């Protein structure tokens, strides 16, 4: 953590129509890290990611990316700076083909050659190559998740936000998606991973933050959180 943080949240407060979802959250992410955000439903994990992406405007606090304040920017400007997201529920464009979805992921890269990026995504997820011309809405849940992640890579992000990539997937598929996330990180992309599957996320991540109804409950190195009795009881289940 000696390096300047890539992303920094300072006392972030987010409210939906008067109801506060996040009450003063501070966290930071160093370049190259995988940071996981854990917590129960309604803890404010997705809200945090949506605030970073500029889809909800914070009520108070600041978000800095590469030293620049981004909470005042509009969502497309945040993408242009290199922050992309594979959102909760995948939200692929169902009536469009797999390839159109991927091209939309590169929407901010006007006029650039996308072939190398498409090739890279198809290499990471060979299933998508098979389904290239198929409507995204006809894909299985796992394939849609691959598409959502692949799509988020097309903009060549510096920081990738992944919201519940394992949700609703078979255990074997979860394993393979997590392996892919690791290799994406090794290629130089910093990752924030929001997960309900706390054990898998902590095994993958360098550090973790635990949220509890919109507040930071714990923050530590991932392996220490894995052995933390509080975390074990609340999020990892008895073992």
């Amino acid at each position, binding site marked *: 953590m000696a390096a300047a943080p890539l992303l920094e949240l300072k006392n972030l407060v987010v409210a939906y129509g008067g109801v506060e979802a996040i009450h003063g959250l501070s966290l930071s992410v160093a370049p190259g890290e995988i940071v996981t955000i854990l917590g129960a439903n309604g803890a404010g994990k997705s809200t945090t990611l949506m605030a970073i992406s500029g889809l909800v405007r914070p009520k108070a606090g600041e978000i800095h990316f590469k030293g620049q304040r981004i909470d005042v920017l509009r969502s*497309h400007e945040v993408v*242009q700076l290199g922050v992309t997201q594979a959102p909760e529920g995948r939200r692929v*464009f169902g009536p469009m083909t797999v390839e*159109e979805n991927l091209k*939309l*992921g590169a929407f901010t890269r006007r006029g650039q050659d996308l072939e190398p990026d498409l090739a890279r995504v198809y290499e990471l997820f060979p299933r998508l190559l098979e389904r290239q011309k198929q409507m995204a809405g006809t894909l*299985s849940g796992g394939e849609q998740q691959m598409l959502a992640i692949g799509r988020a890579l097309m903009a060549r992000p510096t920081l990738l936000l992944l919201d519940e990539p394992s949700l609703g997937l078979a255990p074997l598929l979860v394993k393979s998606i997590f392996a892919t996330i690791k290799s994406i990180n090794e290629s130089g992309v910093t990752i924030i991973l929001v997960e309900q599957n706390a054990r898998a996320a902590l095994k993958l991540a360098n550090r973790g933050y635990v949220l509890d109804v919109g507040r930071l409950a714990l923050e530590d190195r991932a392996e220490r959180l894995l052995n933390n009795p509080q975390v074990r009881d609340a999020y990892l289940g008895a073992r």
Partner: protein
Amino acid sequence: MAHFVEQIIYGLTVGSVYALIALGYTMVYGVMKLINFAHGELFTLGAFVGFFFLVTLDWGGVFGPALAIGLTIVMVSGSTALAGHLLERVAYRPLRHSDRLAAVVSALGASIFLQNVIMVVWGAQYRAYSASLLPQVIWRVAGQSFPLIRLFVFLTAILVMAGLYLFINHTRLGLAIRAAAIDQGAAKLMGVDVRKVIAVVFIIGPALGGLAGLLVGVYYGQINFNMGQLYGLKAFTAAVIGGIGNIPGAMVGGLLLGLLETLGDAYVSGAWKDAIAFVALILILVFRPTGILRERVAEKL
């Protein structure tokens, strides 16, 4: 069935006008989930701007019919596009974060306002386009007659729609419009500037609607300040028949409604023409509320 082919052509002509107007409803609905109730008035505005150039300024006499029509199409689409853009800025954009109902009320208000502006400027009486603008040519093939003006209206509408189809499916901006119509939030996450997309559909939709107004003026020869109400309602019906929010659906729905009305008029009863259109609307809403071209793929969760 002596004039069956004639009736089909007539139905397609009327239908292509409905389709042009319906596209404006469906594009705006697609991106904003809002029925632009003022759209019928932008259609009327197009008819009157066309009247201004073709009759008041007599461009037909100045430039000759072909050039006059070409220039008028540009002026009409340009001015209704501008009006649509202003409408969005003034009546809708400030309400983007408000209750859905507020935008609906604002749309209704804008509709009444525009209609009255048109009435104040051009009067409440019917206004006539000159009948001599296009040569009164009627081709006769195998006992069926094909008036030039009918083909002109139909082909103009079809050409413009083909252009729109290419734009939507093969340009970057078209891709952004489709994405924003499917999932506005996801489109934002892709880096689409949704505010710009909304501005663009409020330029293209009104331009198409205004052009439809011009075509109706040229075709029927007379226009009136409240003509947009019935046409707007019919075109909205066409958009719902095709599946509101669905661009090819609006085209198909418009043509279908035109055919249905015309054939009903010819073979059932002229008095029932409008009733047929709205019975079609009710049947679609009851039995297939997502329209005949409902999304081909079901969203998997």
